[in-house]
């Protein structure tokens, strides 16, 4: 059984044997280590003092590299702010790094190296950079890329630096960013040393919004639309306001943000439409692999539909198992999309409650789950079988 989100530890667990610093060999480091071993062997074998001299240089470089890289990362503390994002799109973030030591830190990278999916289709799986032990020199030490990172050449002693970063996830879900680290390859790029920084963070990654004109035509044809002018999601410009965590980064007005020196978002006029309830069925007996793929596709199409509904001013209520987002709740769009981010196709029999009065109902789910649904509901099937 999959762990609940609350059961995941806030920070990446560390075993007794894990050192407080993580060291990996870079490509130049591999060359250098190989040459050091070869020179060492030749020196010991031949007793040639000049080879010992060379060996001395190479060992010193390794030692100095270790000492300086430690000095660089030792005094660094950092925090980051990451906006809610959409799978497959860059998520902007800000990392604030402070150098608490008495000397400048050079060539520093701050990165969320790994995250654990605590909800969504990848639940229980780590994403991001996979690092192998330094002794496995026959393979790439780092597999993949960090989820997000920022680099700076210098952080002065006692200074705090704000760095822009970019995060990216390919799959929707809720992720625990539990391996936030300060990383450096200073001074020679032979080794990559990292130190874990405290500060686990959960990040919701919404599903990609895929437009399905056929679904949208059916919904708008069935329920119709009316409009009124209010601040909210729409096409017309309404005003500017400060960017808040969780807001859609695509709405940042970059020109104004650059002028003001802080991110601001564009508010648009909202067109108020009829309230709709979307019931998402996510249980089928013994789900097939093809159904899982169709489910993912369906979630993206549903996200596209919901985005469209919010855009056109509809009030949307979503019911997904025990999770319900009521009409008119604050930040209901984000909350509805968060439900879509976290849902997974599970083994079981889907049940459907009676519809709420005065609320149009849309029932979406795998084709097999829609078998006993009343004909008055609009059915959106995640598959090829009897859609509609």
């Amino acid at each position, binding site marked *: 059984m999959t762990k609940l989100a609350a059961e995941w530890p806030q920070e990446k667990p560390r075993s*007794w044997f894990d*050192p*407080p610093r993580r060291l990996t060999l870079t*490509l*130049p480091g591999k*060359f250098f280590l190989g*040459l050091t071993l*070869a*020179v060492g062997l*030749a020196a*010991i*074998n*031949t*007793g*040639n*003092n*000049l*080879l*010992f*001299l*060379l*060996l*001395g*240089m190479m*060992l*010193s*470089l390794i*030692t*100095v590299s270790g000492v*300086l890289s430690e000095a660089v990362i030792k005094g660094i503390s950092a925090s980051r702010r990451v906006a809610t994002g959409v799978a497959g799109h860059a998520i902007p973030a800000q990392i604030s790094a402070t150098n608490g030591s008495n000397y*400048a830190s*050079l*060539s520093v*990278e701050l990165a969320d190296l790994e995250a654990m999916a605590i909800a969504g289709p990848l639940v229980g799986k780590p994403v991001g950079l996979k690092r192998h032990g330094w002794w496995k020199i026959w393979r790439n030490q780092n597999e993949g890329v960090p989820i997000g*990172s*920022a*680099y*700076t*050449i*210098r952080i002065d002693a006692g200074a705090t630096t704000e*760095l*822009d*970063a*970019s995060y990216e996830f390919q799959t929707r879900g809720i992720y625990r960013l539990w391996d936030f680290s300060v990383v450096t*390859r*200073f*001074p*020679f*790029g*032979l080794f990559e040393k990292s130190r874990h920084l405290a500060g686990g963070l959960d990040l919701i990654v919404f599903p990609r919004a895929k437009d399905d004109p056929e679904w949208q035509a059916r919904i708008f044809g069935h329920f119709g639309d009316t409009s009124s002018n209010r601040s909210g999601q729409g096409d017309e410009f309404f005003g500017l306001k400060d960017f808040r965590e969780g807001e859609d980064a695509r709405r940042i007005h970059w020109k104004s943000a650059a002028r003001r020196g802080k991110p601001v978002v564009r508010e648009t006029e909202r067109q108020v439409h009829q309230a709709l309830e979307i019931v998402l069925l996510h249980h089928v007996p013994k789900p097939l692999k093809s159904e899982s793929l169709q489910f993912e596709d369906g979630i993206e199409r549903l996200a596209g539909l919901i985005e469209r509904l919010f855009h056109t001013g509809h009030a949307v209520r979503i019911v997904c198992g025990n999770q319900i987002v009521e009409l008119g709740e604050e930040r209901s769009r984000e909350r509805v999309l968060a439900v879509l981010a976290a849902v997974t196709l599970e083994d079981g029999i889907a049940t459907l409650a009676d519809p709420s009065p005065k609320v149009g109902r849309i029932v979406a789910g795998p084709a097999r789950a829609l078998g006993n649904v009343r004909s008055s509901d609009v059915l959106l099937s995640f598959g090829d079988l009897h859609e509609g």
Partner: protein
Amino acid sequence: MKADRLEIVHEWSLYLVVLLPVLPLIGTTVLPYAAAALFFAALMASWFTHRAGLGRKIPERLWNVAVLSFVGLGVLRVVFTDTDLLDTVVQLLLILTIVKLFGRWSVRDELQVFVLSLITLAAATTLTDQLVFGAAFSAYVLAGTFALAVFHLRNEVQQRPKISFRGIPTLNRSYALVLAGMSAVVLAASLLVFFAFPRIGLGFFAPKTRDALQMTGFSESVELGNHGVIRDNPAVVIRVEFDERPKDTTNMHWRMMSFDNYDGHSWSRTLNSKQNSLPRVEGDDSRRVSGLSTRQSQQSLAQVFDGSGKISHLQVYLEPLGTTLLPTLWTSESIRLGSESISVPFGPRSGRVERDKYGDIHHTVADQVGLIYQLWAWETPGTMPVDTAPDAFLQLPPLSERFQPFADSIAPGAQEPALIAEGIKSYLQQNYTYTTDLPQVGVSPIESFLFETRRGHCEYFATSATILLRARGVPARIVNGFLGGSWNSVGSFLAVRQGDAHTWVEYFDANRGWVMIDPTPASLLEPPNAAVDAARQYYDAMKLFWTKWIIEYDLNSQLDVFRRLATSFKTPGTSQDTKSEDDPDGQPVPWGPWVLALASLALAWLFASSMLKNRRDVRWLALGVVLIAIAAAATGWAIFEVTTATAAAASALVGAGLAWIRRPRVSSIDQAWFIVERAAKAAGIQRQSDEGPEHFLDRLALAVPTQSAAIGTFQSRYLAARFGANSTQSDIIEAAERLAKSISAHAKTGRQ
């Protein structure tokens, strides 16, 4: 510094890193001057083509063809000519470096350039051990560290996501200073590691024997009759450190080899002299543990020399001379191979000192290595006390009728050898002139010198004095060696140069033995330019330092350094020479390990308190403390052990096993010589132990007249390869084998 300047700094530092390992190779067989010029031209061309972006226009296939052609050519040269494999490999490295510099388009290409430069530097260690390598190495550490750091920075700037930067990333002055300081730290750390890294050579694949890379050469023959200008060769052959600076070094005679037979043109040795080992000095203080001495014995020269006055201690560093003869100061009291340190008597540097019938001193160490030894010399030189002198020392060459009356006319009436010798010496010094610009001489060089030219160098004076002494019935001989030397005030040592080579005379006095006289008058040569002399002094001092602390630094020196370190911890007043109440056996109390252990504990406490203060992980704190405690215990134990004889004995036991593995290998030139010598011996022509190769082969040619031409060819090839600049040796073994077969066939025919 702007970002584009970072690129420029990177470019310069990369080229510097490529250039520095190549510098020590210039002028060697790997990179003759013409090839070096080509290399630099290619280097410059790559600089400009890269900057102009033309490198891509050169098709990659062209480079592949060039490299493969060189590889093919190299294989052919190694197989069919005398080209050394290592030389070819290093040349290939240089070609690859150039190719990479022309076609570097990615970080990986530049990384490969760094790797190639490092491999070239490693290869250079086996090709040269000259001071220029030391200079290039130091520069390489500084430049290489800086270059590597700049390379890293540039890659970070290029590869990190653009979003990371706010504005143009810069390499400012403080950053550059940090990198420069770091380079200096790495250089210092390199030297520290160099001195501390255990010098235990396993020698599984190669012997730990340094070849005579710079064979300064010492002639084992004296030949008169040549003319022309003798050049003052400034190459230092002997460096001598004194406990106290001597008042006068100009009259120091470094005796090496004496001769008995003069055929009118050249001197040779005819006595079949067996070498005898010299006895240990009574009360020799070399430590002994379980029968294994921990340093080589001090051997007495009482059977060779006598003298009087105070005895002074000299530390001698001898460059490779290609002979087993050992320069000894006239007159020395005793001798010990190695330095004044714990010295384990095994390996290629071990050996003993022997004397032959001439009284010449030999060592048994491989003759192609430089040697370190100590001398104890008399303040007032004496003589070589012997009872009789063989008749060989009265032999005279064919002389004209006017010679004997001339000899009798010098110091007429004198009967005592000393009076005759002094008379001849005074006569020559007053009536003849020293010159290095030798005039043309006649059939008999000596008679030309005495009766016609009246000018010559030391060999003419010494030979004339010897022949005149013999003509007067006084046994005499000439001696080759070095005279004087120049005091190096920078390094506080005496530098004896090849230009100080000298010949003098020893005559036999029945009451005193062999007495030395030097009939050569003082030279009127101009002293060297002051600036040149100062530069030479600095260079020599650096070379001594380089030889002493880098090239010759071995396990013995290392143990000595540790021993001195441990001694510095001892309680004041206790020393090895004085017995204390605590230590009735005279062994010092080993305070060092205890002090070290306490220091380590203090360090552990500081570490622990720092960890607690910073609220670090307690597990790592515990681990750190345990590691420090183990390190302290191990260091203490190691220091204690190396200061005791137990460690030395253990080293000796291990070393004795390794000695066999690391035994000196015979070079192909020596091998060729042994083949011929064995064949000659089988044919009944045995080489005398005091006989030089040239003389022996001459004698062999006379004994085997049918092969005299082949022997002559072999002789010239062998001498050129062994002592000359031409080290061609590819088919010398085959030539020796062919010659040996012919000699055997001749012997067989003779027996039939």
